[in-house]
């Protein structure tokens, strides 16, 4: 298995994150991927790194974790970028960040495209409120809209965008069009038809349809509801075409040469399957893919020791201990496991010499934490050391199993898309919620240690 994997691994080109970030031609980096894989963190980490390497960067985050937002000073939603403090600006860069306010962005489009009275009518309409707060795709549309605005300002030389937490990475590309065509849709045109064409003969059948529908809908939902819909549609009338056009414009921006897509995925089956779909889709849309960020990959400094051997050794150590204890009580079970003979032979002799073992160990163990008195002079004895060693070995076996699983899923992706450059980011044990953490992620991204590198440094 390993030989196979290494070859596959070697054939996946490395994603050079610093080269991408340093290139002045890179103007937009879009971090996409399915939910929960670390897009926001990756986007923020790239922002910090790019800024500290000298670029004027703005990061557009969507739904960041509360503490992360706080640490970047963007927890208030005012829908404009704020400069992030604590970033090393000695290379001449700067980091600005913002958190997308979807409803506000929508409101601003309305305010910008309708006179004051009309805008107010729209903003107060219950249908508008429901649409702007909850339509599937509004968030994606508004993320694109905001990206378009930031790009138009031309105030930053690098824009890094996070994408909304959707189940499918493709939603980011599809949802804006969905909202656009929904607003331009057939039904809306029917609703507007009477107002627009005023009963022209050719439209008569539509009006029949209309009144039938009006009847049914108002029976169903009450007349008020339908009036609300109609006022909404009438008020939005001038803007409808606009939504389509805007969505199209941003779409083209995403195809432009200065844009780079990074697909973020965890080394898990579902996430990588989504990533593969997305890669194929980007190619079909002629959108430039920079590479795959494989986030939260596990590694081991002791990968030369296999899970199987570690478990066998752990078992040998545990059996040995069990035997020792039983021997005291005269109830040697005489089990016939095949633990390494050498281990058994030596062990009794060595442990026999040390007597303070059980008392000392019990003290420190059952307390559920270090008891200060015991901690000072208890030196681990070989039996407690054996137990510790067994624990370490079990832990290692588990780690190696995780590694193997992650490698299998990654290899499946690489086999499908050998052309996609990959950057692996080692898993941090805890969550990331400060600049130091983001910097650490950035370092790992740029370092991009593959397993082959790991074993190289070991030998």
């Amino acid at each position: 298995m390993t030989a196979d994997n290494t070859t596959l691994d070697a054939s996946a080109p490395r994603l050079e994150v610093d080269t991408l970030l340093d290139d002045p031609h890179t103007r937009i980096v879009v971090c996409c991927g399915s939910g929960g894989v670390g897009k926001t963190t990756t986007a923020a980490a790239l922002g910090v790194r790019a800024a500290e390497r000298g670029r004027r960067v703005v990061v557009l985050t969507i739904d960041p974790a509360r503490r992360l937002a706080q640490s970047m000073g963007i927890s208030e939603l005012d829908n404009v970028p704020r400069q992030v403090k604590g970033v090393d600006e000695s290379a001449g860069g700067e980091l600005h960040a913002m958190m997308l306010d979807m409803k506000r962005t929508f409101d601003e489009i309305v305010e910008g495209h309708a006179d004051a009275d009309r805008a107010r009518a729209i903003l107060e309409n219950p249908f508008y409120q429901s649409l702007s707060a909850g339509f599937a795709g509004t968030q994606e549309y508004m993320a694109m809209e905001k990206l378009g605005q930031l790009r138009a300002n031309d105030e930053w030389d690098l824009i890094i965008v996070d994408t909304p937490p959707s189940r499918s990475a493709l939603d980011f590309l599809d949802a804006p069009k969905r909202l656009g065509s929904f607003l331009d849709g057939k039904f809306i045109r029917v609703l507007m038809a009477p107002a627009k064409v005023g009963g022209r003969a050719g439209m008569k059948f539509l009006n029949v349809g209309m009144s039938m529908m009006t009847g049914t809908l108002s029976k169903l939902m009450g007349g008020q509801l339908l009036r609300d819909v109609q006022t909404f549609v009438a008020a939005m009338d001038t803007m409808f075409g606009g939504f389509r056009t805007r969505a199209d414009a941003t779409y083209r921006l995403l195809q432009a040469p200065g844009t780079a897509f990074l697909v973020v995925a965890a080394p898990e089956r579902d996430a990588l399957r989504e990533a593969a779909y997305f890669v194929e889709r980007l190619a079909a849309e002629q959108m430039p893919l920079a590479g795959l960020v494989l986030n939260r990959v596990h590694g081991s400094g002791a990968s030369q020791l296999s899970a199987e051997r570690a478990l066998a050794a752990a078992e040998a150590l545990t059996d040995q201990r069990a035997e020792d204890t039983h021997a005291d009580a005269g109830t040697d079970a005489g089990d016939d496991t095949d633990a390494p003979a050498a281990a058994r032979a030596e062990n009794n002799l060595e442990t026999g010499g040390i007597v303070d073992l059980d008392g000392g160990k019990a003290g420190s163990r059952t307390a559920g934490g270090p008891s200060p008195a015991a901690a000072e002079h208890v030196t681990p004895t070989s039996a407690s050391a054996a137990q510790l060693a067994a624990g370490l070995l079990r832990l290692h076996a588990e780690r190696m199993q995780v590694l193997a699983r992650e490698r299998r899923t990654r290899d499946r992706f690489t086999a499908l898309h050998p052309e996609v450059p990959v950057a692996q980011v080692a898993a941090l044990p805890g969550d990331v919620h400060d600049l130091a953490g983001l910097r650490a992620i950035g370092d790992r991204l740029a370092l991009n240690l593959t397993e082959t590198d790991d074993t190289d440094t070991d030998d």
Partner: protein
Amino acid sequence: MSRLHVVSGKGGTGKTTVAAALALALATEGRRTLLVEVEGRQGIAQLFETEALPYEERKIAVAPASDSGRRAGGEVHALAIDAERALLDYLQMFYKLGSAGRALKKLGAIDFATTIAPGLRDVLLTGKACEAVRRKDKNGRFVYDAVVMDAPPTGRITRFLNVNDEVAGLAKIGPIHNQAQAVMRVLKSPETAVHLVTLLEEMPVQETADGVEELRAAGIPVGGIVINMTRPALLDNGDLDIAARGARTGVAKALSQAGLGGARRGGLADRLIDPLLEQAREHAERVELERAEHAELTAIGLPTYELELLPEGVDLAGLYHLARDLRKQGPI
């Protein structure tokens, strides 16, 4: 005991998996449960390894007997609720619409109505689930002993269930309005319990706490918290403590005794120690974080249930395993 179990939680924490396991777990002694999904993703079909579910209730699994075999199993039925179909059925039921219904569909009105007004969509979905909860057979017995819903994630669950408020702004009178009120009565009664699935990680735990607060504020009964994908702590405090103080020589000896090479400095066993201890430190850090998150969950004051991480993922056998684990942890 509640009969409508709504399973929510942060995205990807295992809502679908837990809902399915719960539907299996509740199907004991000839009981019949209905597992419903509302987001049109066919997650249930995938999990049960069957073809896509139609908009129609059908049996998808036979629940296992208890471990001892003394208590027989029951059966799980499933339904993928589709808002558009639900609306058409509804129109049909109340208005005998016939061709007018088809015309509406053709014009995109149904699509329009269910999309532009999420409140309307939700009341159709929850309405269907509530109908199944209250449905009785000829003998006046409930058709389903329990209904389990694979619901939208925590971020949307309160709005989703609080249909009355959502629809109130849109439909102030009429059958939709009445339907919303009827649904709300069920959802706010002790017949309903919303369970939140979480992992022992910061974001899901935070969302769980926020979600519980929101649900309570809306007067919707919260059931339990399901902590999913737990991992055993392989080293206990004492071990970690010793490891923290650096037990090099002892451990090197033990490793060597276990046949992993020489214990002397630079020997094979000795070279394993640093990386192994490093892994132990990471593990300790994670265990510590998990403990803090666990404490936070306990502080919410709801019953908790735990499901372990199945290392090879959840296949059908894994699902039954999780169902058994849930059962062992008492009534949910």
